């Protein structure tokens, strides 16, 4: 038994993580002690201040992050090597924080539904009972959602930065548990929302179990949880390789569940549909970013030397995700479910990028790395998704949000601006040029093609065509179909939602027209450190 040594904590480099975690805890305290009337304002301000402070921290760290070891990557290993604060981590942190700010703004929206937020008045009240009616009448609302969001953000930051399997598992859980709760808090259609939360929780817990089992097997193989040491063990081919293979498979299940890849996609439509739309927006964008960061780190850093074991699996999963996502999305008649399946298809496209070359010394001049391509794609996808769901929350009828697609007919006449913005997000998701989605697709396709994964690229092209049909179908309904009955109405949002949508649209446009700076930023992020 070796003696326990207390790890040193690099407070400056971990500042963003600590701030987010601290603010989350502070939020719990506010919830306990502040009077009900003061909670909404103080929670929103606290959450935003925390996120902005963390963002400033990310920028400061990124400015003087040092070169690591041989110079191909930059960053440090913090807390005794359990957290890697490197270029990709910082990029993902910045992205998650930006999306979280948008998330808080959407959470705080109270203009759309007659002066109350999208969350249940009293979550513990059984739907349809007097207690629920009383809570609604008293205009109660759950302000716990802000600390919960902050905890989820903390998890989303820890998950991709984790440099050993145990920390990664902790990140996974911290990210997931608040989201399970948030999903069940919808104000309207509560049964659907609670069902979604339970489904998400059960399946999520199950996939966490897979991850943990895989971590145990890998530990059995390599004798360590640390990514660098696992990589070392794989390289030297020590131990029983069936442990490694089974362990890799089980870890993949956990991660692929989180990114929503086929065959672990079954939860996405139900959860996306049931969760309150602001939660869906934040979760869809944030989780995917964090989980892809973690997935790349695990596969590239820990299992990079065993590339030929997992690469064929990812080929198949990428192709399956694209096709299953795109085809099933076409059959949906609920806009949130449609976007859920489209996110499954996008998972496939991002996986195509993961398959590219990984190290910059393997590249010809002028080619981009997979990390660069995937980070860029995640940026484009994150903002487009956040914006799209924010628009979904605006289209309403008497019963709350109208998510049935055929009820969106005539939206182009009813509210040209909202319809145009939504159409723009859809075109971005379809990858039409002059939107960010096109440059993202270009980036991931070109890294995959450069790595010789042309069958996947061909499949991706065909899947893109199918997916394009689905987005165009929605645009056609909005613009060219005759409205059913009264047609949809568009609630006039407060500055909070409007800002989120405007920023989402602006990012989508700017990254489509002038993607250079962000591509360069993703390139400057460099590689993962070991």
């Amino acid at each position, binding site marked *: 038994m070796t003696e326990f040594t207390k790890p040193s904590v690099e407070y400056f480099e971990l500042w963003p993580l600590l701030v987010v975690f601290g603010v989350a805890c502070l939020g719990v305290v506010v919830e306990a002690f502040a009077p009900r009337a003061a909670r909404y304002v103080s929670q929103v301000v606290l959450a935003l201040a925390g996120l902005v402070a963390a963002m400033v921290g990310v920028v400061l760290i990124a400015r003087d992050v040092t070169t690591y070891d041989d110079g191909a990557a930059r960053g440090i290993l913090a807390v005794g090597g359990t957290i890697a604060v490197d270029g990709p981590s910082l990029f993902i942190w910045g992205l998650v924080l930006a999306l979280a700010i948008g998330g808080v703004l959407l959470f705080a929206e109270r203009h759309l539904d007659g002066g109350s937020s999208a969350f249940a008045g009293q979550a513990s009240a059984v739907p349809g009972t007097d207690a629920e009616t009383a809570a609604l009448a008293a205009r109660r609302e759950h302000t716990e959602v802000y600390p919960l969001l902050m905890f989820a953000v903390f998890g989303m930051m820890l998950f991709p930065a984790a440099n050993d399997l145990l920390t990664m598992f902790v990140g996974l859980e911290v990210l997931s548990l608040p989201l399970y709760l948030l999903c069940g808090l919808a104000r309207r259609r509560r049964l659907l929302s609670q069902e979604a939360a339970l489904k998400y929780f059960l399946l999520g817990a199950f996939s966490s179990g897979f991850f943990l089992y895989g971590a145990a097997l890998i530990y059995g193989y390599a004798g360590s949880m640390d990514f660098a040491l696992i990589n070392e063990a794989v390289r030297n081919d020590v131990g029983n390789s069936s442990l490694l293979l089974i362990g890799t498979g089980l870890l993949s299940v956990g991660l692929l569940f989180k990114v929503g890849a086929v065959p672990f996609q079954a939860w996405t439509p139900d959860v996306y549909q049931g969760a309150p739309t602001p939660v869906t927006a934040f979760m869809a964008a944030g989780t995917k970013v964090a989980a892809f960061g973690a997935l790349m780190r695990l596969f590239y850093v820990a299992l990079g030397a065993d590339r030929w074991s997992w690469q064929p699996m990812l080929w198949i999963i990428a192709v399956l995700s694209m096709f299953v996502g795109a085809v099933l999305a076409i059959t949906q008649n609920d806009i949130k479910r449609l976007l859920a399946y489209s996110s499954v298809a996008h998972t496939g496209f991002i996986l195509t990028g993961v398959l590219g070359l990984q190290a910059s010394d393997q590249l010809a001049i*002028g080619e981009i790395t997979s990390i660069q391509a995937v980070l860029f794609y995640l940026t484009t996808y994150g903002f487009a998704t956040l914006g799209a769901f924010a628009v979904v929350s605006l289209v309403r009828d008497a019963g709350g949000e109208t998510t049935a697609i055929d009820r969106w007919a005539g939206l182009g006449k009813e509210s040209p601006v909202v319809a145009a913005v939504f159409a723009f997000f859809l075109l971005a998701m379809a990858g*039409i040029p002059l939107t960010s989605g096109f440059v993202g697709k270009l980036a991931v*396709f*070109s890294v995959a093609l450069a790595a010789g994964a042309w069958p996947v*690229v061909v499949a991706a*092209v065909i899947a*893109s065509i199918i997916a394009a049909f689905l987005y165009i179908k929605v645009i056609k309904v909005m*613009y060219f179909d005759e409205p059913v009955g009264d047609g949809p109405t568009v609630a006039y949002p407060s500055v909070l939602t409007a800002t989120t949508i405007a920023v989402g649209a602006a990012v989508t446009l700017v990254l489509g027209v002038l993607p*250079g700076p962000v591509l360069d930023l993703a390139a400057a992020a460099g590689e993962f450190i070991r």
Partner: protein
Amino acid sequence: MILTILILLPLVGALATAFAPAALARTLGLGFAVATLLAGVVAASQYELDAGMQLTETHTWIESLGVHYALGVDGLGLLMVLLTVVLVPIVLLAGWRESDAAGNGGAKAFFAWTLALEAMSLAVFTATDVLLFYVVFEATLIPAYFLIGGFGRAGRGRAATKFLIYQLAGGLVMLASVIGLYVVSANAGNPSFLLSDLAAIDIDPITQRWLFVGFFIAFAIKAPMFPVHTWLADTTEKATPGTSVLLVCILDKIGTFGMLRFCLGLLPDASQWATPAVVVLALISIIYGALVAIGQDDVLRLIGLTSLSHFGFIVLGIFVLSPTGGTGAILYMVNHGIATALMFLVAGFLIQRTGTASIREMGGVEKSAPVLAGFFLVAGLAACGLPGLSPFVSEMMVIIAAFDHHWLVGSVAVLAIVLAAFYALWMYQRTMTGPGLVSVADLDRREVGIVAPLLLALVLFGFFPMPLLDVINPVVHDTLAGVGIAQEGGHQ
């Protein structure tokens, strides 16, 4: 700089029109279209014959992907630019009242989308960076989609969707080839999307074939060619005639333009390899398009299908890989643009008057509207290649080149002239002659003013095609030299 101005003018015009007060929108839109026409004329006056790619501008756009904002025109590009800037004001004038009619999306939207489409089309014809070309190639689809879906007859939403799916499918297949080109250039040590850089790379023949297939599928859908033409008839039937002019006379030219510039220009070995298959497809398009056109009852659908036949001629001229064929094909692109625009617009005026597009329900129009009938007859005669009208020259050149290629190819192509006479004249007979069902008003001065320039151009270039040929010959010479076809005696 002039090319950037040429693209920016209609783009700014589109935005200005979209945000202008409704009363002012049309005038403003037309003003921008005319300004663009003038800019086009200025560009043409700066153009020097026989000097290759010119009026060039190059700026880095996305550095890490080797993408440039690079513009330039050769003779082919210049002619397409001129065709575009001339046709757009005519289409706007023709849609002046029609686009405001009940059930349509409003004149403001029509003018704004048309100008946006013009800007993107001009960018397509002047782009000399493959990715920039791809970007604007796809970007043309959005205004086109809203023009088809927003204006025209019932069922247009469906037609618009069909159009967009077809085009996007082609575009995405091409994207794979575009990225493939880039990977090839990166492996060759100079990663770039610039046409000039790419042309300097020697791509191995097998890779060329894959890339060729990707490009060709996209351009065949665009052009359109058999068997990927089925969007064409639906679109022209449901959209307004003005939109159809934009689509068939301008946008579809991107297909054949792309074949010349990308397939022949960048992938010469693969183009030679593919020639037999492409020639067969072109012949099928020529004959099939004409045959199907004969049986149509809907005037607009009929005209759309005749274009399938005409595009078959253009592709045939390109892929017989001879100077006569190439020159004929490019000349055909210009002539087809003028003749088909005339036909669509006159048919549009006719439909406005009769209230139906069904040939069966028309008849005897020439008694009450002789001027309209006259224009319609000339357009029809141009379509079937009457000597003295410009399509005759180009059609003859392509057919001569086809006979040079192989007598069988020539004899099949020549059949189309007979079929064309059949569909054009029979359509005229059924709509204009015979017992009159209703008497309709003749073309008024505005309408004559809109279509007269097209008629004049048809006659002018029918007798004096030399100015066009002078611009075309150097392009054909350069392109064929790239493919490795020696040209007897050089060009004039």
